[in-house]
């Protein structure tokens, strides 16, 4: 018995179930109870659970993160949301100096069961300050866990796991995933934090991706398959802890590695994936591993330029072919990205 719902609905359902199951859970963020309900992920929850457990907040990202931390050490289990990752930069003092360290720096006597939901913007002119994908930064700091689901199933399961976790979990949602539909069990379940998933099996090369870039990698793998190349896609799901075993095991099978990351290159998750493979699977690698990341520039707002800014199916296919020593071949339009320019689909239109 399958049931298809959107990624956004899956997040809402996980939140609802967590609020229902545990009176310590509460949800706070700019616009949480407003008519737009954080892209539909919080709609109706204030009506169901009251203003004390589902609440708006002042535009004070640093203090509100501290408030969430304080409430967590006092026994609550807050979920804090920011509509763009970019806004969370105002709260890195509280996240890195306090949330990540409070447990350890007081000798392990306190816990900070905090979930911070952050959204990555893309398209429709999000531009330099509304489209950053900063998961690598969060992953760098010990004490923070970072998850980045790519399917409605994992969106629900990872959010539930994050709320149940006794540590700080940074939960990163790509704006273009909110509308994606998939199978989601109706009951409560968790997806373990720290476990990657083989999203597609293959034998010629391993594509390691996460979040929205998993969709690009899967599309690229489909097209490559038409062409006789068998690509395995590893969806990290958790950025931190990263599933080293899954990466090494897959590379051991395919002997080739391409890391596809939605963030910047320098000291990013793709660097980490390559470093893990170099350290632990050097002998397996039959050719130099590579990375596909954002270019070392800021996001243009102009939509054709933004479309070129984001690497997707064509870049993945070209790199894979090159790594396999195959001649370049252009990807037919139906296999490129979504094909809708700066929107994930025609029904999903700006401003958003």
């Amino acid at each position, binding site marked *: 018995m399958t049931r298809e719902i959107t990624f956004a609905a899956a997040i809402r359902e996980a939140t609802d179930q967590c609020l229902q199951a545990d009176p310590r859970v509460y949800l706070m963020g700019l616009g949480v109870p407003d008519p737009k309900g954080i892209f539909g992920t919080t709609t109706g929850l204030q009506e169901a659970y009251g203003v004390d457990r589902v609440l708006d907040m002042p535009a004070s990202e*640093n203090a509100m993160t501290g408030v969430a931390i304080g409430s967590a050490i006092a026994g609550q289990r807050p979920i804090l949301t920011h509509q763009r990752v970019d806004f969370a930069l*105002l709260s890195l003092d509280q996240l890195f100096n306090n949330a990540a360290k409070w447990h350890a720096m007081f000798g392990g006597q306190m816990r900070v069961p905090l979930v911070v939901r952050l959204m990555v913007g893309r398209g*429709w002119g999000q531009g330099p300050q509304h489209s950053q994908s900063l998961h690598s930064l969060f992953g760098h700091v010990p004490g923070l866990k970072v998850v980045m689901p790519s399917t409605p199933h994992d969106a629900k399961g990872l959010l539930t796991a994050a709320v149940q976790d006794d540590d700080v979990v940074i939960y990163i949602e790509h704006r273009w995933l909110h509308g994606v539909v998939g199978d989601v069990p109706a009951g409560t379940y968790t997806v373990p934090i720290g476990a990657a998933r083989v999203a597609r099996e293959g034998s010629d090369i391993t594509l390691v991706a996460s979040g929205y870039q998993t969709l690009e990698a899967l599309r690229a793998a489909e097209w490559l398959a038409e062409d006789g190349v068998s690509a395995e896609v590893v969806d990290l799901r958790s950025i931190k802890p990263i599933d080293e075993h899954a990466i090494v095991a897959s590379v051991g099978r395919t002997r080739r590695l391409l890391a596809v990351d939605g963030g910047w290159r320098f000291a990013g998750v793709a660097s980490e994936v390559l470093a893990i493979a170099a350290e632990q699977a050097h002998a397996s690698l039959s050719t130099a591993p590579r990375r596909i990341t954002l270019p070392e520039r800021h996001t243009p707002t102009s939509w054709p*330029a933004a479309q070129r800014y984001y690497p997707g199916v064509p870049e993945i296919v070209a790199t894979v072919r090159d790594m396999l020593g195959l001649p370049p071949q252009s990807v037919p339009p139906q296999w490129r990205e979504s094909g809708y320019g700066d929107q994930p689909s025609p029904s999903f239109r700006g401003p958003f």
Partner: protein
Amino acid sequence: MSTIPARPADAADVGQSLLYGMLRIRMVEEAIASRYHHEEMRCPVHLSIGQEAVAVGVASALDRRDAVLSTHRAHAHYLAKGGDLRAMIAEIHGRATGCSGGMGGSMHLVDMEAGFLGSTPIVGGSIPVGAGVAFASKQRGDGRVTAVFFGDGTTEEGVFYETLNFAALHRLPLVFICEDNLYSVYSPREVRQPAGRDLVALGRSMGLAAERGDGNDVRLVRDLATRAVARARSGDGPTLLELSTYRWLEHCGPNYDNDIGYRSEAEFEVWRERCPVERETARVIAAGEATVASIDATRLRIAAEVDDAFAFALASPFPEDRDLPAAYASPLVNPR
């Protein structure tokens, strides 16, 4: 008189040019709203319809060489300060001829010539930058005054207070303009600030001059701003102005949204009655400074200018990657 002058030639023209400035902003914003569904403007737009008096009143107190910084809701500030209309419309269309060359969109406007040094959509983010511009003016003694615009929601960000403190400490030539439109996105004041918050008292306790006024009364705004600018220019330090006003359209986008549930049609109607453009129109006509006919002529002139700007934008090319600025201003040294 045939039309309202774009810039005041003498004292008698001032009221008319205030009206002109507001009308122009109103018509530009209306044009953006009405054409937005064409999906050629593929970026968020935060329109200022209903809030024109703040921008125009403040800008009328500034010299061209003075500086302005602003936020996500910047069209009015940009235009009032003398920003290039074609360049703004082209930027919103993502064209190479845009004021930020296609890197900015509506949320990152700039016109260096006009002293409009930038607007950014991270709430509070441009406030200390404005203070830095004013600090440089103080260090250099260049006589320039800087004005920073921001909304009522922005007074919840810590950086706002940090900047007030620094500005007061160094008596910076700076004017803080808080446009209080009652909302931060769809969040009303009562879920963000305690009842009875007194921003004027707060500003004064921080060491600034501070005043509150009706932000839909463009002449009052001009008077308050003129005093604040004079204070700044003469070295008497910064001023915080809190100006109450109302945004007519949705927070982001081209539509009316009184139906979605965060505010009432009745509230909207109260503010609709206080339309800053209509109020100033009535005043100008009553004073005999303009006639209905002369204002209609002005409207026609503005409409033509707006049409031209959209035509310019739509005829402009999109930027090529080689036209886009690198992340770095200086070439990265290749040491070999």
